[in-house]
């Protein structure tokens, strides 16, 4: 390992963070975009390198300022964070590469440098959460990424984004503050902020009540950030009114990073130390997941606004992610983590299609896309394939995670069969809401003849790249499965 190589964990955060102020200074057209995209691609390259080291079995740890671990801030990358790093930096790079024209429509020229700076800050906050092993550092990065994403969401021309983002700001801040209270309570009892160190020290705490309280605060706070049903109220409007490319970026990763922290805390710090915590977690997550899946899919079936339809579908998909974990077995956790990866691919592709449509029609309502498949055949073909992946048809990435989920449900006994039925019902509901769009686009007659043409080439190409990745990972799912299994064993190893 070279000296440069050993600094990669910190470079992962620093590259986008330090490029952000640089971008503000650029006022030539396209230059801010080009620099932001380059920084994002660098971050992606670093993530790929880190993932390869993790898969080769290396333990990646980095002490900031060379202060040793429990005292200084430690950065650590394992299979779980590597998987998430790929998703986050990948989503950002794809959205930026595809989005130059789309963002030109949404963001005025003179505000573009600031917008791209906010984008890079959001990215560095998200990757910061993933690489750090320090509970308080997670809070700081969480707020960096949240503040930046509020700016991104409200950066467009849609005025309805403003009340939605205000609501998001309120709920996001309450969630982060709850997390802060939880971390404070743990620090009070153990005197440490390092996650690994915390695990050992919590064990020695005589009175477990504050730790239990901390577990409650942290779980609820992160559930708010992660839009776990019924704390999802901020999500549909925020996704709907954000600029299309911002939706691609945030839908693919923002909530999942909060869920990452939730899993990490629950499995690594609380499970080994709190009596009955595994049971409580199941009791908390299982009913909420099932409700999320059913309610999210039902609302999506009747929603006329296309982006809001996909946002409700996201709430249902977050339900799948939490459902897998609530089985508490390795297969279940693997299924969850795989679904994080595969859902990002499917939903990323679907929102990219929305961005394609958004280039040609003003209002993304279902009535406005009647017969559009004749005008934009490539866009709608991409929608069909990505939709199939979302439903979980064999041969697509979505199938792999659903398969693991159903296997895990069967492993968990009689109750599992009921859950399998629910998964099947909700997959059928997904067929319904995807089919509604497909039917309207392919078989309804267009109203009035407008001159709609195919979406701009860069956008279309990137959309297809993601769609083909959906199919590729449906047939060759080796890498995500290996990472997800590694991460699941890591988390599950902590369950006594």
């Amino acid at each position, binding site marked *: 390992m070279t000296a440069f190589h050993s600094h990669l964990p910190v470079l992962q955060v620093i590259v986008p963070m330090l490029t952000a102020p640089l971008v503000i200074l650029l006022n030539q057209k396209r230059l801010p975009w080009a620099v932001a995209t380059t920084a994002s691609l660098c971050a992606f390259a670093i993530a790929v390198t880190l993932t390869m080291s993790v898969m080769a079995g290396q333990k990646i740890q980095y002490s900031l300022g060379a202060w040793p671990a429990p005292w200084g801030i430690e950065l650590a990358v394992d299979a779980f964070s590597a998987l998430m790093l790929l998703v986050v930096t990948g989503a950002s790079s794809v959205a930026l590469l595809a989005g130059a024209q789309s963002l030109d429509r949404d963001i005025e020229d003179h505000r573009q440098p600031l917008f791209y700076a906010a984008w890079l800050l959001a990215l560095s906050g998200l990757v910061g959460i993933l690489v750090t092993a320090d509970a308080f550092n997670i809070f700081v990065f969480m*707020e960096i990424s949240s503040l930046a994403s509020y700016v991104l969401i409200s950066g467009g021309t849609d*005025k309805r984004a403003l*009340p939605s*983002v*205000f609501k998001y*700001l*309120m709920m996001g801040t309450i969630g982060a*503050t709850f997390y802060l209270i939880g971390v404070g309570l743990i*620090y009070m009892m153990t005197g440490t902020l390092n996650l690994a160190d915390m695990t050992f020290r919590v064990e020695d705490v005589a009175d477990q009540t504050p730790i239990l309280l901390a577990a409650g605060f942290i779980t609820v706070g992160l559930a708010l950030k992660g839009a776990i049903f019924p704390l999802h109220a901020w999500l549909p409007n925020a996704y709907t009114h954000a600029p299309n490319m911002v939706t691609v970026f945030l839908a693919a990763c923002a909530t999942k990073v909060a869920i990452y922290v939730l899993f990490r805390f629950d499995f690594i710090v609380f499970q080994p130390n709190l009596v009955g915590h595994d049971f409580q977690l199941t009791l908390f997550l299982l009913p909420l997941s099932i409700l999320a899946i059913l309610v999210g899919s039902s609302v999506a079936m009747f929603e006329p606004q296309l982006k809001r339809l996909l946002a409700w579908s996201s709430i249902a998909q977050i339900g799948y992610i939490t459902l897998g974990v609530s089985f508490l077995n390795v297969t279940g956790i693997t299924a969850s983590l795989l679904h994080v990866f595969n859902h990002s691919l499917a939903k990323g592709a679907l929102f990219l299609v929305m961005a394609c449509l958004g280039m040609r029609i003003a209002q993304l309502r279902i009535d406005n896309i009647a017969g559009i498949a004749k005008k934009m055949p490539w866009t709608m073909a991409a929608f069909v394939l990505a939709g199939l992946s979302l439903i979980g048809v064999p041969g697509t990435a979505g199938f792999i995670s659903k398969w693991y989920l159903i296997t895990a449900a069967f492993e968990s006994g009689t109750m599992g069969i009921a859950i399998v039925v629910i998964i099947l019902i909700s997959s059928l509901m997904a067929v319904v809401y995807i089919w509604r769009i497909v039917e309207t686009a392919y078989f309804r007659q267009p109203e009035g003849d407008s001159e709609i043409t195919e979406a701009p080439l860069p956008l279309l190409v990137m959309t297809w790249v993601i769609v083909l990745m959906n199919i590729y990972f449906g047939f060759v799912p080796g890498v995500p499965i290996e990472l997800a299994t590694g991460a699941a064993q890591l988390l599950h190893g902590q369950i006594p």
Partner: protein
Amino acid sequence: MESLGIYYYWTFAVLLMVGLYAVIAKQNLIKKLIGLSLFQAAVFLLYITMGKLEGGTTPIVTEAQANALFSNPLPQVLILTAIVVGISTLALGLGIVIRIKEEYDTIEEDEIQEIDKR
């Protein structure tokens, strides 16, 4: 009387709930932000009280007081960061309220919802 002895935790809890109540119950967006600030301030107090020891002194080791009882300085450092985060959130929130006022000409949540429904 034991519960009165930990009055600092009561301050934290009461302030937290007052803030949360304002965020949930108030329609005016500025009042919501005031509630949010109270909510965060409560957590600052929680952190600051936890570092204080009865009879504890400033944590500067000199030969004269090498074995003295020291207060923990770390929570204050942590909360300094959280205060900065809180201020940024408040500033951004106020910025959004100004934009809402420009676009909707009101900062009452129910009126904004009325306008959006049209």
